[in-house]
């Protein structure tokens, strides 16, 4: 089973992954219905990123929308046996 992995050192915290994921699920922009949740703390610079079990890696698309629209190339589709990358900082 593949999964989406985030390289935290590349992520700028723009939340586009959360947004386009909700579009995949609902056809609208609805962050609450996204498989991805992004949290920012402007006082520490921290970005926390969660992916839940509703992620289907956008099976109907050429590539997952979160990977496609990440301008920072922080997201990749990886095989699950890969070592887990740093997903939070």
């Amino acid at each position, binding site marked *: 089973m593949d999964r989406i992995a985030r390289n935290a050192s590349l992520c700028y915290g723009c939340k586009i992954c959360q947004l386009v994921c909700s579009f995949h699920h609902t056809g609208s922009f*609805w962050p*609450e219905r996204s498989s991805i949740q992004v949290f920012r703390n402007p006082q520490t*610079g921290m970005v926390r990123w969660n992916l839940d079990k509703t992620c289907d890696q956008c099976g109907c698309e050429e590539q997952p929308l979160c990977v496609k629209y990440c301008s*920072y190339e922080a997201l990749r589709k990886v095989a699950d046996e890969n070592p887990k990358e740093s997903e939070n900082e």
Partner: protein
Amino acid sequence: MSKEGRIGGALAGKILRVDLATGRTWTESSEPYAARTLGGRGTNSLILINEIEPGTKWSDAGNLLCFGAGSLVGTAAPGACRTDISTINVFSGGKGSANVGGSWGAELKYAGFDHIIIRGKAEKPVYLFITDGRAEIRDASWLWGKTTYETENLLRQELDDERIEIAAIGPAGENRVRGSAVLIDTAKAAGGSGVGCVMGDKKLKAIVVRGHGKIEVFDPLGFMEAVAKTHRQCKANRAKVQSMRQSGAARFEDLDFEGWETCMVIRNGQDDHWEREKRARLMNPEAGVPSMRRKIRACFSCPTGCMPFMEKAQGKYREMKGEGFWINALWSVARFDISDPETAVAFWLLANELGLDTDYVAAGLAWVFECYERGFIDQKDTDGLKLDWGNGEALIRLMRKLAYREGIGNLLADGMVEAAKKIGQGSEYYLAHVKGQPSIEPFRIPKGWGLGVATSPVAGRHLRGAIRGPVHSGPGGSDYDITHYSNQAKAVVWQSKTKELEDNLGICNYVGTWSGAHFLTLANYAELIRTAMGLPVTEEDLMDRYAVIGRNLEKAFNTLHTDLSREDDLPPQRFRQEEIKTGPYEGFKADEEQYNAMLDEFYELWEWDKKTGMQTREGLEKIGLKDVADRLLAKKKY
């Protein structure tokens, strides 16, 4: 396509109205406003001109404080994160507006609102809590007096929801310091026009938003195709993307970067050239400002990513960290001849904590330093502070006095033009201000920049048409020398118009048509609007109608509420009188005759009266603003 004028998507759909005096809240549809203006700032401007009686002062209960997320905010349109805050400008008495990024505007839309319009004043400090179509006015006495950082932490503890977004004022706004900002997430400042001062005057400490809802667009698949196209454009410009992602100020790590020579203002305008060793000390990669830049962050849905996160160890000042070190910060300290990097970072982060607008602090307090140098004031007036050029510790202490109205800070908090009247001795000549608002901008070398700042309807600032050549800002592909007067007005008007559209849509111009990014084009804007909002617009509709409506609404507000005239569209006196003393542009000044020639062309391009700069009935009626023309006529204002 939807029927012309009917909006088929992208809006949350409602405007929240709040009367702080009575505690009443109610809603109305945002669509009729957005159909006329495209939304965002345009709608805020329309509400202000329709509802505020001429003669109303910024501190009157009848003044409105308007928050408006852009029409495309909350969608995946690139860089669509911006919120406009409009009110009466505390400096000019005319239109006030400040624009800010972050995630607050998107969260407001998910909570069901495009705008919040606030009238009246609360008796005691309050904050607004807005979620899913509802608004509550809550006690904020426990937050009053707190910095923006403390306010954010306390509200997060109290509300126990990581997803809330907060717009707050700091002590400066509470104390009605004129140059106060509204801070989003403690870091992104809506700085100009004194919007934080108005918020403090209304005793409104913060607006907390949390939305669980959605934003739908007119043609979802078409819209995503349009978005994908913009992302491809962004990626294709990799060199520029990499440059933007080091923050704009990073360009100045190259001591030969042309910006060092063309847009610095030193010692409050005594010169526009800064010695190389001072540049080197401030921007040294190992020990200067860049050494405190830990990472870069992006606003909501932004493919550019330009916000540096700074961390400063304890040294002269306490340990500090937070987002933001912009070119403005670099310009600000140069104005005091301060090349100490620790002071530069502390200056910026302290302004965010106190809720001060950095341009006001830099332009205002540099003028105070010059008053000290010239003997208009002395140590008795400054509570012992030695305001010598380069004295960073004195600047940091003076900022605190300003925010808390201590000693001389009380005099300066009521505005620098007012302070100059009290200090007298001809001191106002040395105060760089545009329409009353202190200004950090260069006027003597980059002429299109100077014209854009001087003609801004919101009293200066460089986001309303200031250009610096096709590489850094201004229309791409054009060819002109930024130091010349010719060929500037047309480019300034083009840039002013695209900014109108960007503020209506809520798209950051660091993604759009300014700053040299040029990731988006007018064709992209038209396509995004057609697919998201269902409005069948062309590029010509945008530039010849909607952009013109936006600018004319603000211009008319100024005409109805102030006596601003052609003279007020010229650079500050000092830059017209005094030449640059050293450096490659020695001898340059803002030549009054040449600036006036640029103004003639500028007014003609806007179809305003060339002689007076006033609007005309024909021009207003052409863009459907007959009602505005009638109001101007009633006031004998053209």
